[in-house]
């Protein structure tokens, strides 16, 4: 187990470094940073001024190594646009995104597990297809479109929920539904497949023979075993949710990491974009690593392969 863990850890570190380097290069390829920073209406002199002030005229490798070195000490630099410490900025916005990701995940699980169970209990029937369709609709609908529909119905036509902002708990309902619905299908399919497999197993037949009620069998005995892969997937999806909330946060004006990413990308605010990409990639890699290790611990066969 230890050898496996170390190998995976090493791989995770390599992936994280590669992602940050790729982001570093790609960000600079999309236009001149100094021009974006100077804003519309700036003269050539203004732009050169800014280029000098922010050290954007140094060679790329020097800029990258400088950045890596500082990051190792927890210094992610200053935001070119907000002129404040990047780490402080990210720390300020992270809770909103974390809450959104968590609620979205809970909503996704809340709709996908029951759907998966119902589908598994009537495999290949019209109920099964209907559940699948309902779940897949989440992935087929562009989530900004779904978000606007939700706003239209629940905030404009029936003013029961607020349209935008992040002041109260009510503000998180619609965004969580919009984002959560998008990640529900894989959970639903996993729950369905897991349940079908478990329901066909010997110990379930034994439970039935013992005379246990359907509900007890499904929920207490079968579901618990079918959940293991779902937990592993949830860890990975959480990473995706943390990084994939840009559109939802923008539509609902939630001041989180995704919104910050959108702003910093529009303004070519390199330090912030770099920091967000790096931070999210580390979290994602960490969660994937955790899921891998949990699976390997539960199922020794994985450690060998």
């Amino acid at each position: 187990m230890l050898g496996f863990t170390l190998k995976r850890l090493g791989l995770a570190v390599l992936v994280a470094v590669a992602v940050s380097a790729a982001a570093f290069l790609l960000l600079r390829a999309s236009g001149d940073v100094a021009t974006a920073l100077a804003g519309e209406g700036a003269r050539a002199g203004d732009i050169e001024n800014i280029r000098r002030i922010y050290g954007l005229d140094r060679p790329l490798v020097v800029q990258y190594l400088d950045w890596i070195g500082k990051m190792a000490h927890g210094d992610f630099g200053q935001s070119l646009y907000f002129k404040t410490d990047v780490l402080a900025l990210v720390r300020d916005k992270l809770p909103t995104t974390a809450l959104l990701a968590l609620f979205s995940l809970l909503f996704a699980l809340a709709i996908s597990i029951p759907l998966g169970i119902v589908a598994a209990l009537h495999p290949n029937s019209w109920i099964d297809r209907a559940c699948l369709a309902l779940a897949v609709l989440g992935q087929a609908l562009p989530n900004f479109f779904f978000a606007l529909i939700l706003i239209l119905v629940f905030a404009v036509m029936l003013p029961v929920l607020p349209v935008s902002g992040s002041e109260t708990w009510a503000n998180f309902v619609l965004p969580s539904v919009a984002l959560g619905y998008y990640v529900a299908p894989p959970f639903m399919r996993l729950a369905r497949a897991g349940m079908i497999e478990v329901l066909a197993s010997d110990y379930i037949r034994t439970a039935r023979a013992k005379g246990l009620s359907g509900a007890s069998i499904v929920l207490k005995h079968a579901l618990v075993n079918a959940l293991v892969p779902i937990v592993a997937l949830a860890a990975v999806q959480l990473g995706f949710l943390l990084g994939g909330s840009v559109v939802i946060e923008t539509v609902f004006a939630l001041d989180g990491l995704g919104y910050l990413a959108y702003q910093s990308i529009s303004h070519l605010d390199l330090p912030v974009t770099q920091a967000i990409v790096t931070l999210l990639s580390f979290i994602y890699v960490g969660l994937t690593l955790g899921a891998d290790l949990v699976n390997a611990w539960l199922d020794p066969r994985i450690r060998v392969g």
Partner: protein
Amino acid sequence: MIAAASGGRRTTEDAGRGKHAGMHRRLCSLVCPAAMAFLIGLSFAAPAALAAKKDNSLRVAEYQVLDNADPYFNSVRIGVILSHQVWDTLIYRDPKTNQYKGQLATSWKWLDQKTLELELRKGVKFHNGASFDADDVVYTLNFVSKPENKATTQSNVDWIDHAEKLDPYRVRIVTRRPFPAAIEYLAGPIVIHPHEYYAQVGPQGMNQKPVGSGPYRVVEHAMGKYIRLVRNPDYFKDSRKPQPQIEKIELRFIPDRQTQVAEMLSGGLDFIKDVALDQAQQLRGVPNLQVVSAEIMRYAFLQMDSTERTLAPQLRDLRVRKAIMHAIDRQAMVTSIVGEVSRVLNVPCFPSQFGCSDEAAPRYAYDPAKSKQLLAEAGYPNGFDIDLYGYRERDQIEAIIGYLRAVGIRANLHYLQYAAFRDAVRAGKAPIAVWTWGSFSINDVSAGVSVFHKWQADDTGRDPEVRDLIERGDSVVDPQERKAAYAKALALIAERAYVLPLYSIPTFYVAAKDLVFTAYPDELPRFWEMRWQ
């Protein structure tokens, strides 16, 4: 397995029948209250807007986040808007008559081409209680004009050499070079900060807790989320800005325009701006809202690269450029897709800008036949392919491409972000570029024409005669001489077809029906003038 299945089937059938009946009952008990709720909900559709009117507050949305509230350290439109609500300038330009009147200054005179002397107003107080006097003017101007202090838009401040105090209510401003537009700049971006506070906290502190002398003061600035303003009860009575009537203003940052519209519909907001034409047209029908369109100083133009380094050498031929000038039906575009209050322009400046005159400029009527003829004469009877760059108003650009195609010019669109677009133009990669320019709301031709025709990085014509005429206009102080020089330059630009001026761009405001407000061409909502009916 079979036993279980048949047993299940029997159970399921019985349960099914009962289940269905139960389901119907359950469905009805679910739908009926929902329908009731829907109807009730509709009737309560606009309580929030009434609430705003009741407590005399205004909720406004902005889509661009403000990075720094200090007007010298941001370059976004909302920063400009905020600067006029929270701060004052030395001179005030009356938006209706375009006349200059004293605001924090009471009078001024030019001592020579580079020295301006001003008398200051007594009895003005900043929001923190400090009194306004010459020290504030001197400190603010000397601080922001130093390049090492990194004011964001250097062109707003680099004309200032220094300011000096003559006595507590008299100052002198010395410019680096003769700069006749100084008065316009002193009425626009140059706001005055309280010197003690500014020296103590600097731009960062000013961003967190802004202090000015204006009609509204900031009570809370949650960066990226909202800014809350309240009426300044001690706003000086002699101000050219009328005393504010609305008590509280909340400016919320909502990046998505659809969300802003949704908030207007649900009564969560009272005022939004920069609404797209098609949405504005649809919102006209909504009973609680009013839609106001206004012409603004922003104008669109099509730039052609006719310099030696151009990637499209055919543009160096005047006939080809003239062909393009005749190819586009600007009036039709104005009528159908740009908006009702915009107008076709014949010179690349906004009509209210000092120095903007199209009297001597030749007109180019829409004449595709003439275009084709000119192209044939120039040696392109079958037209040619060319790259066209743009960064906003994509629908208008597509229309332009359509018109060009009709005369045989096959334009290949590169639609980019502004920064990338500007890079391409400066690097000579954009043979045709479609621009819009707002001139920072500065009502002087030097904020527009000089940027594009004075051999600076964005000039793709590089005509020495035009440059010299504009240089003259920019540097002499006598208004008549300036006007004459600019008029000649603009006439030459039109004759030699360096750019095709398109039209002025309108903006649409959507507000609660009971809000009384006026829309001005400088894109600056004046909250201190607004009130609830």
